């Protein structure tokens, strides 16, 4: 008999302060990563304070650790936030479906992330970068409310080093600092100005609902992306992650098991319950 609710303990290898209120935590189990696929998520907990659901933000190909990014807000995340390097985090997973890379191979890729929604995008994006030759042109568009709200600031340059890869970082108007050299503008607006074509391309979009809504519109209507080639992830409230607790239903879909990764086409068939 196996207790599906029983977590494993993972050690905190590194804590990266991303913004004033978000962090990325790198974990290891027995010195390495676990088997997961980009887009999947796990239940992370500071034991005693409860579990919290986060998507993985690292590439599974980077075997020395696995990571997630989070903002401290509730009881569980505040607990996690208080931990130090070397402390243990309880972890269950990986759960859910994943970005199907077989359908992305050989195509041009567009990664669009907004705010902390960049975390799952980063996972698949770095996965693709790690196997750079399998894909066509890669465009990365990442935006946040302000310069201070941008995650992963230290590694933008790393992304840029890959061949045939364009990295565009933008902040919402008013969120720029005097020394800001990136773009200023909302993500969907900046996206629209990019010379992208839907044909033979896959777009991966994740961020706040309003950003997703407009980004999908731009991709579909202005750039001609096919709905089945636009992929996003849903962030419903979850508890078990195992399709039991009844919380994450959207229509007939259990987001924790049938998702969290959906194509725009799949989303279209779901009722507005997320």
């Amino acid at each position: 008999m196996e207790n599906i609710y029983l977590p494993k303990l993972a050690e905190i290898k590194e804590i990266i302060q991303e913004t004033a209120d978000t962090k990325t935590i790198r974990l290891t189990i027995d010195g390495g990563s676990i088997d997961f696929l980009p887009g999947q998520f796990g239940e992370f907990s500071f034991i005693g304070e409860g579990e919290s659901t986060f998507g993985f933000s690292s590439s599974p190909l980077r075997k020395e650790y696995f990571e997630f990014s989070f903002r401290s807000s509730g009881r569980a995340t505040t607990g996690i936030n208080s931990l130090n390097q070397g402390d243990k985090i309880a972890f269950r997973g990986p759960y859910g479906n994943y970005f199907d890379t077989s359908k992305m191979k050989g195509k041009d890729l567009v990664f669009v992330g907004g705010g902390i929604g960049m975390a799952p995008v980063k996972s698949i994006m770095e996965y693709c970068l790690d196997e750079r030759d399998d894909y066509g042109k890669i465009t990365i568009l990442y935006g946040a409310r302000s310069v201070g709200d941008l995650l992963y600031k230290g590694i933008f340059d790393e992304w840029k080093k890959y061949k045939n890869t364009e990295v565009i970082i933008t902040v919402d108007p008013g969120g720029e600092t005097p020394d800001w050299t990136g773009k200023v503008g909302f993500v969907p607006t900046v996206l629209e100005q990019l010379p992208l074509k839907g044909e033979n391309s896959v777009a991966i979009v994740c961020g706040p609902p309003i950003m997703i809504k407009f980004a999908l519109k731009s991709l579909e209507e202005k750039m001609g992306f096919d709905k089945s080639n636009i992929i996003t992830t849903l962030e419903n409230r979850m508890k078990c992650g195992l399709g039991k607790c009844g919380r994450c239903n959207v229509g007939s879909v259990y987001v924790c098991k049938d998702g969290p990764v959906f194509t725009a086409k799949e989303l279209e068939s779901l009722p507005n319950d997320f």
Partner: protein
Amino acid sequence: MANTKTDEKLQKIAKDLLESGEVSLVIGYAKGSNLQRMRPVFITKAEDAGKLSFNPHAVQDLAVFLKKPEVKKFGKIGIVVKGCDEKAVNALIQEYQISRDNIKIIGMECNGVIRQSLADKGETNLSESAVYDKCLICEEHIPVLYDFLIESEEPKLVLSGNVKPYSGIEKLESMSAEEKNAFWAKEFDKCIKCYACRQACPLCYCSRCIVEKNMPQWIDTNSEETGNAQWNLIRAYHLSGRCIGCGECERACPVNIPLMLINEKMAKDVYNMFGYKSGLDINAKPVFGVFSESDFNDFIK
């Protein structure tokens, strides 16, 4: 079933209120899923006023709906209330949850409502043994505040004195701490933490209940002896001096915990200690919003 005179009066008032635009919603009672049940009904069109009805099966305290955001949206609301329920309206006004200007109170003179458990078995006659305990001690057969009053067609309840309302309170008071503890442990053991008592209470209007606050988690989430006791304690505490005695918590409780034994006891003691009864005066200051230098001090060393 034919309209009674009461029903006709009620329908007329609601119709006028809606037609004149004085209110955009009337909350009242309509015939329910069987003859011994009434259910809340929400009338927004004058032509639907005919659905309204009132009889001794109108057990619900409709004031509970005044806390619902979906209902609040209607702005000016007319509400059908019995005397006990109306006290809840007053308490809500006292606690700034609704404004007197936005509510039209259609008061029903009420000589008692029949226990639902008996009604479900077919009881239809108002009698001392058929009504709720609250009806036996009722001092507000006519609501203390109303814009319209409809007199009752039901005969006044004849009290023989054989049925002693809330007699459990005295019994409990005479028990030792351990006996009381054993009594309540058994009762709370039944609790399933469905929070129906809270949802059915017109005065539990917090948008986030304290049990839903998890930083910190003052009330254990478990539905075992500890979490159940804490929940029942905090619910009773938050209603001490506020409960108006409509008994909806107890009626809603699916496992029959005698919650009114707690509520009534606290109401009694708050009255004895501070001379305050809830819901009687919209201008009165709630008992825990004020103090007196000469308050009960005996228990403090």
